[in-house]
Every structure is written in C-alpha cells, then in structure tokens.
C-alpha cells in the first residue's frame, strides 16, 4: 500500500477538502463569534482583571449570588413567589376556592397536561428548569386523578418538547399542540381511545374538576385572527372567534360539569379570552386567569388554589365577550399598499395600519361608550357588525349597544379570598396643579389574610372645545395604583400616592399644538376595577341604575374639583426637563396622521358620534409621491462637500479611556476629549456589530461584551457560565439552568405591584446581567396591548399606559440598580406581529402621545416611584435616572423607519423626555429598511444585526466624510452610547489591569482540532505520495 501513489494522491485531495472546510468553519465562526455564542450559549471571550486593589471602586455592582446554587435558588424563589401574586381570580361562587391542601382533584383539558408555560417565541421559559403542572400540584399536596392523567400521558408519550425559534435551550411546549388557529383540545372519544378508563375514577377524585384552557402566544408568526379566518378547518367556537372556547373544549367543560359538583376553570392565556359563557354558567364555580406562569409557576398556582396565598392580581386588560368587535380590530392584519410592488425590495414596503380608533383602545372604549349612554350623550345606536349579542356573537342587524353584552370582566377586575373595604381619605391638589396627593385606606374585612390594590381613576370633562378640535376624552382613566402589604383580617393600611396630573392633560394637535387642560369638573375615584370606579363617578354625577348604570355607585369614593378659567395650554406644555412640548408627528415627513399625507382619508372614532365614526377598514390605499419618497427610506441626501475641518476624529494625543469615565455624568467635559479619539470607522464598526453584542472600540479601550434578549431573563445563556466578580462559579457545571424562569411580564403587570416589579427587574434582568456578564439585556417590552388579538402580548404589560408605564419603570429601575443597560422594546407602536417589519403605522398625535408614548414616557422619566419607596429614606437614590437604553421597532412610524423618525426619536424621546442613552434598532442590520443614515441623524447608536447590506455604500469613514450633520450626529451618538455604557455593568470589575482573553469553547476546540488533523493528513498524504513516487522511480512495484 505504501507504494501505491494513487492512494496517497487521492487521500491528499480528500484531506485537503476537509482542511478547506475546517478553515471555512473557523473563519465563519470567528467572524460571527458573538452571534455563535448567543446561539449556542457559549462565551468565547472573557474579561480578566488582574489586580483588584480597590475592589469597591472596581465592582460598582455586586451580585447577590456567590455561587450557582445561590443563583439557581434565588431565581427560583422569586419566580415562585412572584407567580402566586399574578393570578387573577375572576369568579368564585360560593367560595369554591380555596381547595383543601390535599384535595383529590381531576384535571381536564389538554392544557392540564401540557400548559402554556410561557411564550412560544421570544423570551421563552427555560425548559431545563420547568417543573410540570402535575409534578408541581402533586408536590404541593394535591392528589390527581391518575386515570385522566394517564390518557393525556398516552397522547404525549411519543412527543417531545421543542427548541425555541429565537434563543437557546428547550421550549417546554409541544409543537403538535402549538397553533394560533386551533386549540388542539382532545375530544372525549379521543381520551377514551387513549385510555378506555379515563373516567373511571371521577368519584374518587371529586373534590374538584380543574379544567385548564389555554392559548399560545409569542414573538413572530402570523398571530390570531378573528372569525373564520382565524380558525383552522373544522374548528368551531362559542363566539366564532378563536379566542373563545372550541367545541372540543366545551365538551370537556360539559364533562366536568356533568360529573363534578365543583368545577374550576384556569385560563392559561395572555390574550384576553372570550369567556362570557363561563362567567354566566352557574355550574362553573370558579375561574382564575393564570396567564403564562413560567418554569416554576404551577407551584404558585397550587399555592393559590389551596389558599396558602390569597389571590391578589387584577386584570390589566379588559375581557370582552367578543374582542373582535373592538374598534381597533377594524384595522388589523395585512392591509397592503396598492403600489407596494413599485418599491425596491430592500426598502421593505409591504402594508399599513391606520389606527382609526384613536385613544379608544381597551377599557377606554367600552367604559366611555357606556358612560355616554348613561349620561344621555348617545352611543346606544349601533350598526350591524359593530356590537355583540347577549351570547357574544356578532350582531347581524342594526340595534342597541349594551355594556352587559360587550364586557365580561372589566379592566382592573380581580377577587380575593377575603374582602376589603377602601376609603378615599383625601385628595390634595398641589398649588401648581401638577400633582395631587391621594390617600386611600384599605381594611381587610374578611377572614383571610391578603393583599389589595388601591386603584385610582379620573374623569376629565369632554367639552365643546374638545369636539371642535377633535380631542377625545376617556370617561375613566387609570391615574395610579398601589398594592397593600399582606393585611391580616381586621388590619388596615393607609397609602398616600403622589399622582402626576400631567396624565390628565389631553394632547391638542389641531389648535394649541401642545397639552391642554379644559376648564370644568374633574373627578377622582377609587374602585375595585375601572367599571366600578366609573360607576362611582357617575353616581357623583347624579346617575343611578335607573339611568342605565349596571350597578349603583358610591359617591363617597369620589373627589370632585374644578379647573377654573379658560382652556389651559400652559401648565403641561413644558416637559419635566423644561422642554417646550409641541407637535412632533402631526405634519411633515415624520407625521403619523395619514390625513397629513392623504387628506380626508381617515375618520377617527369620536364619542361625539360613536356610531357615525366607528372605524371602517382602510384598505386599498396607494402611496402618493410624498409617501413614496418617505417609504423609500432614503429621505435625507448625503452631502459630500461640507467643511468638516474643525471636527476631530481619531485624536491620538489623549490617554483618556472609557474606564476613566466610569460613572461619569453626561455633562462631564471629558466626554469631548474621549469622543475625539474615536474614528468614524470605529463608530460604524461598533454600530454594525450589535447583534447581542457590544463591539469593542479599541481607541478608547472599550472591550467587547456579549448582550442578550430578553424581557424575562437571558434567552441564550445558562448558569453554567455564571461567575461572581469575575471568578467562575465553582459549582457552575452542576446548574445547567437558565434565568428565564419567572412568570411572563404580562403576569407581573397583573400583580399591580410596583415593588414586586422592581424586584423582578433587580433579579430577572439585573442578576442576569451580573451573573452572566451581559451588560445589555433587551427588555423590558413596553408596547401597549392595542387589542386582544396580537399574539405577542405576553412580553408587554397591559392595554393601559399607566399600568404599563409604572410597572415597566419599576422593572427598569430595579434592573439599572444592578447595572443592566436595559433596551426597552419596541419604540414604538409595534402593535402587531403581522408584517411587523416594514408595516407603516398611522394614528393621530393624541393617540400616539396619550397611549403608547405615555407608557414609555414613565420609564424614560423614571416616574411611578412606589409610595413605600417615597416614604423610605434608604430608597432615596432610586428613580433618579430614567431608562438608559431603548430598542426601536421593526415597523415604520408613519411612513418612515421607526429609528429614523426624528419626531419620536429626537423631539419627544431625546428632547422632551431627556433620554441620553443607547438606541439600537431591532435586528435590521445596516440595511435600507433601517434607513441607516437617517437613523444615525435621529440618534440611533447601533443596528442590531450581523451584516451591512450591499446597497449601503456609504458605511465607511470616507462615505460620511463630506457631511457635517452626519459627522456631528456620529459624535452625538457616541456620547449617548458611551455615557450609557459608562453607567452600566459594562464597567463592572474594570480597572487599568482589565483586558479580554479568548476562551477555548467547544466549537473553537472542534475547528482547531479539525484544522490540525486535516493539515497533518494533507501533508502526510503528500509526503507519502512523494515517497511512493520515488519508490516507483527506483523500480519498485506498487
């Protein structure tokens, strides 16, 4: 063989081929090193600090977990404790709940075996950590009917949990039963086929039937659609919509009712389900909303079911009988531009969304229309197809709008195992009319310990001025909320809230061009929910059930005051940082009102004519010349011959580094010196390498770091990578668990507990940063729930901007206390997943400012400080700085890429709100769809993605060198991003001895080994080929 030259010749080519493939792999893996880390959960580079003489200065942020065991237990403890406070008891007839702690129960429904633990995509729960429902219930003492369990077990016997679409690890969900158009419930016949004796032990496990119904949700995908379009073939539902129960689910419910005296339904969904039939059914004893409980959340469910914890959550979204009839639903989904095909592919032009419902989303619509009917202002008349029948189906004839037919559970609804009495003790309006002190006392009047929520609402006058200038007013709006401590029976707690009255102001884009306050009568009210509070206000206005109210109100729970004088366009016309507030998105290139481009196109819903202005679907629009220019995402020409001789880049005369700026103030004069050191190319390289990554900037000593999604903990990294102050956990390998284990953010909002949200920010986001060395965590999600059908609601908080804003603000303050550079997502108006990249979102400026932006504003201005923090001297240093990071949205804002909409990104966020931090796009890369040069001008500091599109030819120092505005924007953006990083955990553990070192990850070891082996094989084959040739030449035989 040694003499057979053809063998060695062939082997040399084989090994050379494998050597080439190995070299390619090495090149690609190193090019996308940080992305590979994110995808496979490795860490290929580490930060090493050799000397820590002054540890206190070096380690600004200190983790509370010194070992993997502590971290694992800490995340788990918080997840369980939090979860039990996020379940809203919606119905509890005859005190059906709580059950005894050792109750013998029968679980019904496919979700009773395979519940939705969390999102199916984006911020998914950690499957490695997940404790399954039946194990959690059993561990807590419940005895489960084994026959029924066996039937479901048989169904899933050959099925496995899946891998998440984004992020790493295991998703605790079965692909076979994860769909938006089919609940995949099993019929009784199917159960019988799986276990003929599934129903034999009902009598032995009859303390309660617990039926679990659910709907999946998550990032991406097409989401939910109403009516027939949203149902798979053969799927029939109660209201005709996929968010009501299917025929198969109802069969399961009926089976439970027929065989059990006590039937409890758990609603395992974050989309508000249409469950009017369950509420009205006297044989359904209890209903509890559990949302997505997370990896350990069914311990919490058991704790609530058995009474260890009294439920204290309240709905953060209204539950309608038929959510498809909300005015927002008239414009939803894929509504393409007629001339979308005229645009270049890279401009990413597809569809548009005209949010003609104005401010009337969620409870604002239902409660305001109800109030107008009670007040005799109209609203009862309703056109076919816009209102619900008593059973929740869509009306097919013109008729009468009736609140009782429309709403199942109001916003803010939630029961407890005890009862509370609340009094509105006092309301003191500050002399400058900008704040009010509202004092509420809550007393536990029942027999169990529990927490209560003080919900404070307001009503503002709807005047002729408003009607003239198309300003809309909700009949009731949440102003603030606080949660009590656990109150023992008979115990009371008094809480004083300082309410921000700027949230009462209305945005008048037509006349004043700023926020105004109308003269007239204002009401504050407390209530068990938004409807109860409104009824209290209506009672104060002299109304009773004789006027059509659903219940009598309590005038003693209201406070009335008058705003005297003329329309006030001054008090709230200046933001908290002193910036004058003026129209930002009503006209010009950055307009969000479609009427600014195509006059007369949209009619916005007005309470002055509910039926006449009820939105229609605006389809079939073509972009005109102006819109086309904007949609093209190339709206500001790049200049080439500006004088830029005075602008300094790449200055090498300074020794200043980013390490010297650790904790520096934004106004610190040294920033200019530091920024002058950076070259334009360095900035562009930084900005274009931002997929879960903070790229190094060599000239100023900024090291490279990993970053990660998402709002519920790290998506890709595990405690096996954990460390404490730069030293890897000794027990890391024993804890292959993630940090995304808590209930979903929407659950946390439903707790209505700012302190709990703060703690979740500290641990879920903050400790993920410190334990896993991830200075940036992409979260929290703060988009508003525009309607019930967006499938990504679980990542966001609520339909209400104050609940969203204050819970989000608390989470951010908690996270930033640990050094997390949060990236609030998504600024702004990411209102649906359908066509989320490229869709052009239009609305009037009042809606933009009073709904979505009002929520975001609370986080950027560090508003919503809990009353307990305000009263605690040790918390004086909290809520001192707003969010330092944001992620812009995929959708267009108006016609312009969100990151390039200067009206939102600059005028409102940077100027009015004083945002000084990091602003990254949402996985666009440097591509035309992100309008890169316009986005840099609008304060974008990075483009999440992995590549620079071929058609962005100016992405280099030379390309920008003749445009003064661009170069100034580069300097400004450097200031923003470096300030944010210098005040984050990116600087944790940093001193003059700090540097980065490569780590031999498994994939590095693999390609290095392959290169070595195949290089040796190639060389060896060639040598042996030469040897064989020589032997042959010497006359030897082969």
């Amino acid at each position, binding site marked *: 063989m040694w003499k057979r030259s053809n063998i060695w010749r062939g082997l040399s080519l084989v090994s050379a081929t494998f050597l080439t493939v190995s070299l390619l792999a090495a090149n690609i893996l190193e090019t996308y090193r940080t992305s590979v880390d994110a995808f496979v959960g490795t860490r290929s580079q580490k930060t090493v600090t050799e000397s820590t003489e002054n540890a206190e200065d070096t380690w600004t942020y200190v983790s509370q977990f010194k070992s993997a065991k502590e971290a694992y237990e800490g995340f788990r403890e918080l997840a369980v404790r939090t979860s039990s406070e996020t379940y809203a008891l919606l119905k509890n007839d005859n005190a059906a709940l709580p059950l005894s702690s050792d109750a013998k129960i029968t679980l019904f429904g496919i979700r009773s075996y395979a519940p939705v633990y969390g999102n199916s995509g984006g911020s998914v729960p950690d499957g490695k950590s997940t404790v399954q429902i039946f194990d959690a219930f059993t561990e807590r003492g419940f005895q489960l009917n084994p026959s029924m369990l066996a039937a479901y077990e048989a169904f899933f016997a050959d099925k496995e949990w899946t891998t998440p679409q984004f992020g790493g690890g295991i998703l605790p969900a079965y692909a076979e039963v994860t769909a938006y158009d089919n609940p995949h419930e099993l019929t009784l016949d199917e159960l019988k086929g799986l276990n003929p004796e599934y129903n034999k032990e009902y009598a032995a496990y009859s303390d309660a039937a617990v039926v679990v119904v659910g709907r999946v949700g998550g990032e991406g995908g097409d989401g939910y659609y109403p009516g027939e379009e949203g149902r798979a073939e053969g799927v029939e539902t109660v209201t005709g919509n996929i968010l009501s129960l299917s025929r198969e689910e109802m069969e399961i419910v009926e089976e439970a009712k027929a065989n059990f005296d006590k039937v409890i339904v758990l609603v395992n969904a974050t989309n508000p389900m249409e469950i009017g039939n369950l509420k009205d059914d006297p044989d359904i004893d209890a209903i509890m909303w559990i949302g997505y409980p997370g990896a350990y959340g069914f311990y919490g469910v058991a704790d609530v079911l058995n009474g260890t914890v009294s439920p204290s959550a309240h709905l953060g979204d209204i539950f309608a009988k038929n959510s498809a009839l909300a005015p927002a639903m008239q414009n939803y989904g894929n509504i393409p531009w007629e001339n979308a095909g005229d645009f270049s592919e890279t401009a990413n032009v597809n569809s548009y969304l005209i949010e003609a419902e104005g401010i009337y989303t969620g409870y604002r619509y239902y409660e305001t229309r109800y109030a107008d009917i009670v007040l005799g202002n109209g609203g009862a008349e309703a056109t076919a197809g816009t209102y619900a029948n008593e059973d929740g189906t869509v009306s097919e004839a013109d008729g009468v709008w009736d609140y009782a037919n429309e709403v199942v559970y109001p916003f803010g609804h939630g029961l407890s195992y005890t009862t509370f009495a609340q009094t509105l003790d006092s309301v003191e309006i500050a002399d400058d009319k900008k704040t009010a002190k509202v004092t509420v006392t809550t007393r536990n009047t029942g027999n169990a310990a529990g927490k209560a929520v003080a919900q404070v609402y307001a009503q503002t006058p709807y005047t002729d001025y408003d009607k003239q200038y198309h300003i809309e007013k909700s009949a009731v709006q949440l102003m603030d909320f606080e949660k009590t401590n656990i109150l023992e029976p008979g115990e009371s707690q008094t809480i004083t809230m300082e309410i921000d009255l700027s949230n009462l102001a209305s945005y008048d884009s037509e006349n004043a061009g700023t926020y105004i306050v109308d003269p007239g009568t204002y009401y504050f009210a407390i209530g068990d929910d938004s409807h109860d509070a409104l009824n209290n206000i209506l009672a104060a206005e002299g109304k009773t059930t004789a006027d059509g109210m659903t219940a009598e109100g309590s005038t003693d729970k209201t406070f009335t005051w008058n705003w005297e004088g003329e329309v006030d366009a001054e008090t709230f016309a200046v933001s908290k940082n002193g910036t004058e507030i003026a129209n930002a998105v009503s006209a010009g290139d950055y307009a969000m009102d479609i009427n600014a481009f195509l006059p007369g196109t949209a009619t916005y819903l007005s309470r002055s004519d509910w039926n006449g202005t009820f939105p229609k679907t605006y389809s079939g629009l073509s972009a005109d010349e102006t819109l086309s220019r904007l949609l093209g995402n190339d709206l500001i020409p790049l200049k080439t011959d500006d004088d830029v001789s005075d602008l300094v880049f790449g200055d090498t005369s300074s020794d200043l580094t980013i390490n010297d700026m650790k904790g520096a103030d934004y106004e610190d004069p040294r920033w200019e010196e530091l920024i002058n050191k950076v070259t334009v190319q360095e900035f562009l390289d930084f900005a274009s390498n931002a997929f879960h990554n903070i790229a190094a900037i060599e000239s100023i000593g900024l090291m490279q770091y990993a970053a990660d999604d998402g709002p519920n903990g790290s998506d890709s990294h595990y405690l096996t990578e954990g460390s404490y102050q730069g030293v890897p956990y000794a027990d890391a390998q024993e804890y292959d668990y993630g940090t995304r284990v808590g209930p979903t953010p929407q659950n946390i909002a439903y707790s209505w507990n700012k302190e709990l949200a703060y703690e979740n920010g500290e641990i879920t986001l903050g400790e993920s940063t410190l334990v896993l060395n991830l200075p940036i965590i992409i979260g929290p999600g703060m988009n508003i729930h525009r309607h019930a059908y967006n499938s990504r609601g679980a990542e966001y908080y609520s339909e209400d901007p104050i609940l969203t804003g204050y819970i989000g603000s608390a989470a951010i303050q908690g996270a930033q206390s640990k050094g997390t550079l949060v990236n609030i997502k998504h600024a702004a108006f990411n209102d649906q997943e359908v066509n989320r990249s490229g869709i052009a979102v239009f609305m009037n400026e009042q809606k933009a400012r009073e709904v979505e932006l009002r929520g975001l504003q609370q986080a950027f201005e560090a508003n919503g400080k809990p009353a307990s923090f305000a009263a605690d001297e040790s918390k004086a240093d909290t809520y001192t700085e707003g969010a330092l990071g944001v992620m812009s949205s995929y959708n267009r804002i108006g016609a312009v890429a969100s990151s390039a909409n200067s009206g939102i990104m600059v005028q409102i966020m940077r100027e009015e709100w004083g945002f000084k931090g990091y602003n990254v796009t949402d*996985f666009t890369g440097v591509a035309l769809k992100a309008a890169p040069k316009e986005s840099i001008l609008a304060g974008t500091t990075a483009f999440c993605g*992995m590549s620079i599109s071929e058609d962005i030819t100016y992405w280099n120092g030379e390309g920008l060198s003749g445009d003064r505005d661009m170069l100034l924007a580069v300097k400004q953006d450097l200031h923003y991003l470096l300030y944010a990083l210098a005040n984050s955990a990116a600087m944790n553990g940093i001193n003059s001895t700090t540097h980065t070192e490569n780590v031999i990850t498994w994939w590095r070891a693999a390609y290095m080994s392959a290169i070595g082996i195949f290089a040796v094989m190639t060389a060896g084959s060639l040598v042996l080929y030469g040897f064989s040739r020589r032997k042959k030449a010497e006359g030897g035989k082969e």
Partner: protein
Amino acid sequence: MKMQLEKTDYAVGLAAAASLIGLAIYIFTSVSGYLASSPVNWLPVAGTGIAVILMAVLIFMKQKFSLLAADSMMIGSAALLLYSIYEFVLGRVSLAADVYFIPVNYPPSEAAALHISIAGLVLYFAADLALIIAAFMKRSEEK
C-alpha cells in the same frame, strides 16, 4: 492522431465542466441581482480559470508530461478549486446570515442570490469530488 481517453480523463473532464458551470454561477450572482452593486472578488474566477486550464491540459496533453508533473497538475487544480470554494463561500456568508438568522423579512433577491450561489457551490464540490475520484484511479502509465 485520435486521442485515447481514459476513465480518469472523463472524471477530470466532469470536474472541469462542473467547475465551469459553478464559476458561471459565481459570476452571475456577483454581477446581477442582490449583489450587483457590490464589487466582484475576481480571485475565485482566476483560481477556477487556472484550475480548468490545468485540467484541460491534464486531459488532452498529459502524454507530454511526466507522471509527477501530471499529478502536480491534478493536485494543483484541486487546490485552486478548493481556494475558489473558500472565497466563494466567504463571499456569501453574510447572505446566509441574513436569510437564515434574521427572523424577519429580507429582500427576495437576497434569498435568490444565496440559493443560486448554493447551487454553484454544490457544483464546485461536485468538481472537487470528481477530481478526488480521478486521483484515486490508476492511470494506464501506473498499471
């Protein structure tokens, strides 16, 4: 004089044909569609071109060269093909990153450029495989 072709020559010929088609695809995807506006990397063109010439020489003029020289041409053409593959792949990785890893829509022309390029790469690897097979074969002079 009529040339006598051996099995190895057919294999090398197959490699040359596959290389040429692969090269045509490389050039097509580099100068049209999504990548039309980006500069063309000519190294794979040069590499593949020389490799094909060497293969042609190997088929049609091998009798003029020693066995060692012929083998050197075969190994050299394989090395040039592998180098072309290396450059070709690296020039298309960013497309794959966009198309396969960015979770939202990308221009259809980008996916088209990627998928046509993958077809080209398959042909390049087929050419490499054909050369490997040829290398393992004994030529008449070696028997």
